[in-house]
């Protein structure tokens, strides 16, 4: 069997078996007349410690962890190390936020992030606005998974299968298991994916530098000698310096749990205790992110021709060194790393649209049954949209994600202060959100990210968050006497 055939065969097996695994929960329920909406969207709210942990972890180790981290290391050097820092801080933030959100969600039957906003501020319109913004930032995230998948299959087939058909096939499968099983499908498949991914990433991260340079330290010594300064800030870039790393760490650690799909997950936990317990052990997962970086650095030293797409560093170096079946295994793990988070993103985005945009603008309450039917249909529509984005507007993975982070971080004052601060008001939430998002879009579209101010290069999301927070607090204080404070209601448990 040629390398090409064996690589493709293995990937194909991976993709098919995960799809089937993901369909099982939905199939089981179909005998009882199909899954109920609450089962489909938030897993029936009874995910225990481990299942919840796997969902969280399953979303963190996405195409980005696999390809983006190695691509950054290959192209940018030192600034890549910020990726090691933000996850653990984000869990610390989550330790406070998630257990506060979960009981509110259970008591008032909330399923999505805009549900929570609508509840906190008793405002339908603000809920709709949050949903629309959330969808706008989830789509690039979904596209990121697609693009990654296309790249992987292209490399594994040695260029025989081009990106577009590859993405079409795999995403049809993702849509299929989300359509049938919802969140339970995502969770069962996440377990399998995580194990395979961690093994693959750790193996190559240790094997490749050791194979070429004797040890990880040897590899870094060689790289430092070949490119002095590349491994510190700003490394291979002009403006990703100390101030950029600091401001980006603030944005990403605060913004992490502001992704709309994480709200859905915290509503799927049995009780707040589960969420607190998870926060303790999740940080250790972050150490795994070092390994793809090691692969990227080794690729920079070893690969003779510079890569056009740095994100392909991982796949290319495996392709050059190993037989086809190994490439197939890595590609299979990578494909799952794209498919499973994509499934979760599809689910969340479809819920946002169905419940919070379509359902609210229609002006009548949708029954759970109607919502469920519609949400499943929207999954298919979103798959089509994300596919067209990925085909016609491909972009470098990380840039997309950073834009998304800057955008969702703007929800932070509204959600967190809404939960914890007695004087938060609806007008404050509107003003802060609008100021924040206008600044994010303005700075990023105006190519001002990072923004150079007073000798510093600040992440655009950080600048926007700063003004967002000031606006939120100032307007809330000015209007809180006139309006009944919102958060009293949230704590009314």
């Amino acid at each position, binding site marked *: 069997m040629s390398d090409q055939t064996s690589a493709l065969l293995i990937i194909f097996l991976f993709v098919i078996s995960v799809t089937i695994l993901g369909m099982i929960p939905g199939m089981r329920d179909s005998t009882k007349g199909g899954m109920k909406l609450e089962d489909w969207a938030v897993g029936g709210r009874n995910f225990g410690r481990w299942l919840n942990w796997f969902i969280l972890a399953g979303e963190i180790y996405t195409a980005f962890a696999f390809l983006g981290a190695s691509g950054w290391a290959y192209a940018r050097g*030192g600034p890549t*190390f*910020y990726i*090691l*820092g*933000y*996850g*653990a*801080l984000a*869990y*610390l933030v989550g*330790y*406070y936020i998630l257990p506060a959100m979960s009981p509110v969600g259970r008591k008032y039957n909330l399923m999505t992030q805009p549900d929570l906003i609508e509840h906190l501020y008793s405002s339908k319109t603000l809920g709709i606005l949050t949903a629309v913004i959330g969808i706008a930032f989830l789509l690039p995230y979904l596209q990121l998974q697609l693009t990654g998948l296309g790249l992987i299959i292209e490399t594994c087939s040695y260029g025989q299968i081009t990106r577009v058909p590859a993405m079409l096939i795999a995403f049809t499968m993702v849509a299929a298991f989300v359509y049938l099983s919802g969140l339970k499908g995502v969770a069962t498949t996440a377990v399998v994916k995580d194990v395979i991914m961690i093994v693959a990433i750790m193996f190559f991260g240790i094997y490749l530098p050791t194979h070429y340079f004797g*040890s*990880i*330290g*040897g590899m*870094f*010594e060689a790289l*430092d000698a070949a490119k002095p*300064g590349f*491994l*510190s*800030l700003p490394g291979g870039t002009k403006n990703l310096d*100390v101030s950029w*790393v*600091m401001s980006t*760490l*603030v944005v990403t*650690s605060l913004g992490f749990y502001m992704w709309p799909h994480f709200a859905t997950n915290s509503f799927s936990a049995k009780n707040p205790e589960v969420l*607190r*317990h998870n*926060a*303790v*052990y999740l*940080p*250790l997962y*972050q*150490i795994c992110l*070092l390994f793809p*970086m090691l692969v990227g650095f080794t690729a920079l030293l070893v690969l003779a021709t510079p890569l056009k797409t740095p994100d392909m560093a991982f796949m290319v170096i495996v392709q050059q060194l190993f037989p086809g079946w190994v490439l197939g295994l890595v590609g299979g793990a990578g494909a799952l790393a794209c498919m499973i988070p994509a499934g979760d993103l599809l689910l969340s985005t479809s819920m946002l649209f169905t419940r919070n945009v379509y359902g609210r603008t229609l002006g009548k309450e949708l029954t759970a049954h109607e919502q469920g039917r519609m949400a499943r249909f929207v999954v298919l529509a979103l798959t089509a949209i994300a596919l067209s984005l990925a085909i016609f507007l491909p972009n470098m993975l990380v840039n997309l994600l950073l834009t998304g982070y800057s955008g969702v971080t703007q929800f932070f004052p509204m959600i967190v202060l809404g939960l914890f601060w007695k004087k938060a008001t609806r007008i404050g939430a509107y003003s802060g959100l609008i100021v924040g998002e206008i600044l994010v879009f303005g700075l990023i579209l105006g190519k001002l990210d990072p923004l150079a101010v007073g000798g510093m290069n600040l992440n655009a999301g950080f600048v926007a968050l700063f003004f967002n927070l000031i606006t939120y607090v100032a307007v809330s204080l000015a209007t809180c006497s006139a309006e009944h404070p919102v958060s009293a209601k949230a704590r009314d448990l």
Partner: protein
Amino acid sequence: MMLAKIILTAIPFIWTIGMVPFVNQVKPLVLGVPFFAFWMIAGIFVCFLCIHGLYYIDSKKNRAG
């Protein structure tokens, strides 16, 4: 107890964000990785320990309350 929680929450942020200007260097390599990378990885463990501390304080409070 409140003070302990504030301290445990602040330490990881100071370690991972506040210290960046002072640890931006390649040498010495610690355990084979550049110093800045080592600092970030150590931050993960610091954070793990601090969240563990918070969890301990909270679960003790829940049992007592």
